[in-house]
């Protein structure tokens, strides 16, 4: 081989140790992290999407969590480092608190809130003037949030504030790190948005507590539990009738297994909104992007065929998000007149 050795880059200056020392350093770091962060490793594993990666992380995380449970170090680390966290503690059991889920037995009351006045030809109650729009959800809410915010900024200038709060990797059916029951209450408390746009559902399908055990996706029991959680969020966002909620259904993903989850999620959203038709608008993205339940990457936009989905077959790209934003914008105009 011609002129080899001199072409190898120079290592940074510093002492040279043995490979064994490298293993000692990495091994020590791993050991300390297991002792101090064992529970976090297990929790993170449980939040991951099903697959080999999750299995591997849990294979380490479960024993690490067990060690963490036995020792007081995890709590000590949380106490020392907790102030660095950019979020409030959003993990928890918000959905499991009383009133979170449907209770069997009693016949639920039907209230006027169950009816959209426009459908009945009645005059709708005027909402508050539009000041703050919250756009939230998981990764699906991006870039919808940006597209909508730019449209609102162009139309309404500084009069309407758009708050974008995507929580990537979260889901309604998992609450280890982010409990949407808790998060939605916090968002409303902080912002009191007149309009809340929710687009969530890329990370669903997790088993949820229900019926005395765990309910697996995606039968009627799972959908009922999911609907109960969504209804609780809708109830929070509608703020006793003061706010309007725009909940987008899921365009079907390309993957067949994910389609099964998306169908259950969409059915649950429709059912969840029933008592609040007066304030909650379910915006049907399924029919817009995947009519007749068939996935497609492209569709006609303004007479030209355009790509509307990301290559992952789950998310909308900018073009698709722009289209979704127009639908949300039209619904906002209907309710708020601007």
């Amino acid at each position, binding site marked *: *081989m011609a002129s080899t050795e001199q*072409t190898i880059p120079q*290592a940074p200056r510093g002492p040279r140790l043995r490979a064994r020392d490298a293993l000692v350093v990495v091994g020590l770091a791993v050991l300390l992290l297991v002792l101090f962060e064992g529970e976090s490793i297990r929790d993170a594993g449980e939040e991951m999407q099903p697959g080999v990666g999750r299995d591997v*992380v849990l294979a380490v995380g479960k024993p690490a969590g067990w060690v963490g449970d036995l020792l007081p170090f995890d709590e000590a680390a949380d106490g020392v480092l907790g102030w*660095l966290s950019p979020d409030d503690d959003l993990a928890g059991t918000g959905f499991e608190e009383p009133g979170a889920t449907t209770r069997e037995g009693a016949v639920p009351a039907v209230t006027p809130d169950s009816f959209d006045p426009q459908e009945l030809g009645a005059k709708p109650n005027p909402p508050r003037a539009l000041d703050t729009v919250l756009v939230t959800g998981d990764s699906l809410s991006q870039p919808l*949030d*940006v597209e909508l915010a730019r449209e609102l900024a162009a139309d309404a200038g500084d009069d309407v504030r758009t708050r974008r709060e*995507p929580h990537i*990797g979260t889901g309604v059916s998992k609450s280890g790190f982010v409990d949407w029951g808790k998060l939605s209450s916090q968002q409303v408390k902080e912002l009191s948005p007149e309009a809340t746009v929710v687009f969530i559902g890329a990370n669903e399908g997790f088993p949820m507590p229900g019926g005395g055990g765990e309910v697996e996706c995606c039968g009627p029991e799972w959908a009922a539990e999911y609907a109960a959680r969504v209804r609780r969020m809708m109830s929070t966002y509608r703020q006793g009738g003061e706010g309007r909620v725009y909940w987008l259904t899921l365009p079907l993903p390309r993957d067949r297994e994910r389609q099964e989850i998306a169908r259950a999620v969409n059915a649950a959203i429709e059912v969840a909104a029933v008592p609040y038709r007066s304030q909650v608008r379910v915006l049907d993205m399924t029919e817009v992007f995947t009519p007749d339940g068939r996935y497609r990457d492209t569709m006609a936009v303004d007479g030209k065929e355009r790509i509307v*989905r990301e290559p992952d077959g789950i998310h909308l790209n900018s073009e698709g998000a722009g289209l979704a934003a127009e639908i949300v914008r039209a619904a906002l105009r209907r309710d708020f007149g601007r």
Partner: protein
Amino acid sequence: MVFPSLEFAIFFPLVLAISWALMPRQRLWKPFVLAASYLFYGAANPRFCVLLALVTLANQVGALAVHRTPDERRRRLVTGVTVAVNLAVLAVFKYYGFFTEDFDRLLDSIGLGLPLPLLTIALPIGLSFYIFQAISYVVDVKRGLLEPAPTLDLAIYLSFFPHVVAGPIVRAREFLPQLTSPRDPRDVAVGAGVVLIALGLVKKVAIADYLARTVVDPVFGVPEAYAAPDVALASYAYAAQIYCDFSGYTDIAIGVALLMGFVFPQNFRAPYRATSFREFWRRWHITLSRYLRDLLYIPLGGSRGGRLATARNLMITMTLGGLWHGAAWGFVLWGALHGAGLVLERGLRGRFDAPAWLRWAVVFHLVCLGWILFRSRDLDLAGSFLSRLVEPGPATLWSVPAVAAVVTVIGLQLLPERPLERLRERVAELSPLALGPGLAGVIAVVGATVPSQAVPPFIYFQF
């Protein structure tokens, strides 16, 4: 798989231990490292491994054909065909959408359209990096700087997990010789590697992601909603973010490779202290700029053909360098801006002698202007962003941590380099019993700053 993830935290200690255990037995070590690298690369999408394997085989066939052909014209032809195959792969996966959508839109506006079918093609992670490395292999063989490597070595070179996803762009003649004999287990830069990994994590997770979350993403998302003070802060914050994001990745990659016994070239050297564009490109993404110099600028004629030809070569090199980053007009304009800066600088050399601080201020702000084009991607957004730079209004995003992060990242680069280097070396001299807890402490602290949304991917993953 990304470096700051639980999967990698499990993967790396196992691979490191097995790698050193097998190192003396190269027949076992090489297949093991190849398998580990493909596992790392395929974690996101196993189908991408097929493309990586095909690129490896195609380039090996090309390199062997070049090596066996005595006739210079035929060698040049075979090299050209192999490079063209590489570029075709890049074109299909990276630029097809750009040409069918953006180019079609452009032609449509003047009454012409492209009847090309629209396809959503997933961009394999790291494609631009390993394609460039593959080209470097064939070209080095053609130039006689390297003999064709065994296929297994080439496969390891292209897929080696520390650099497969986002570089640094290690040239074939820098890496392949390191595979000819086992790495010496008594000569491992453990301290330097650990310091780089820790520094990279801090840069990426604690600084870059924080600035993105609190300043850059909100303003670049909807510039119309912000006035001049916030927009100005966002442009400086993006300069700090992209430096910390990319150099943070590179630091981790180089550190991980050092622990495995391999040495990668340096990729960043305080780029924001540059007082000229030329100097900037000797400090920013060094492995890309020397690659473009050696494999594009010099073959185009470099500075050998007079002032106009040099200017043309610089503009072509930098504009294509911009396009390498992605299929968007913002990248093309970013490259063209740097090309124009280099041309202008050459033209003014010897005629205009400005003080160093003024040259620094001009270059730094032009670099920041370039980052606005780079981040905006589409020209509408860049236009909105720039127009808001003169819009009076309140500073809503200025906070002590955000301003401190920007000032620290940029300010540290303006300080004398040697004392900072010395500080790093002093930390690297600590004993393994101190380095281990130190690394764990950094991971725990950095991990505590991760928001509920998890760590976003590195910016350069998409390239």
